[in-house]
């Protein structure tokens, strides 16, 4: 899993039918040590009601995505599975 910041959202009506009902958020990975964003920006499924500007945990495996969404029909690759309150890097 990786840390990322939610920087926007994506609206898409014509898509794979397994994706109906899921929120598509725009995320940007960032390096927690330097707090610098790591391009490029990608689209992730939201499973933790994240809002724009939140620091989130993104799961990058499709199998785990199916478990998170509890739906084996929706084939996903990036899934937001948690909103970070704060993190402490020694």
């Amino acid at each position, binding site marked *: 899993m990786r840390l990322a910041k939610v*920087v926007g959202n*994506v609206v898409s009506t*014509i898509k794979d039918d397994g994706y109906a009902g899921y929120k598509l958020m725009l995320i*940007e990975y960032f390096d927690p040590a330097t707090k610098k964003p790591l391009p490029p*920006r990608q*689209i992730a499924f939201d499973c933790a009601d994240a809002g*724009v500007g939140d620091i989130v945990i993104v799961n990058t495996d499709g199998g785990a995505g199916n478990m998170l969404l509890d739906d084996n029909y929706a084939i996903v*690759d990036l899934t937001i599975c948690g909103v970070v309150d704060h993190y402490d890097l020694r």
Partner: protein
Amino acid sequence: MYTGIVTGTLVATVKDENLAGVPLLLVQKIEDGKPGDIIVAADHTGQAGCGDHVYMIGSKEAARIYRRGNIPVDVAIVGFIDSYNEVIPVDGGE
């Protein structure tokens, strides 16, 4: 999933038989607004044409999205982008 713009079509008659019937398109990846490299993507939606702003899924999931047997693709177009709301701009910094 990453985004791109469909820039061309591709016809390949001699190919793996599992790729039969899978439409192939040329898509230019868009990374933070800047055009990236042009890749060959399988069109899972079946409706994509030149100039469409699409998003694609990669690696194993691209093969799994066909949900039938072994379709050996690594990039599949799965949807069209109606609106792409970048609330925080790319050089938004901290």
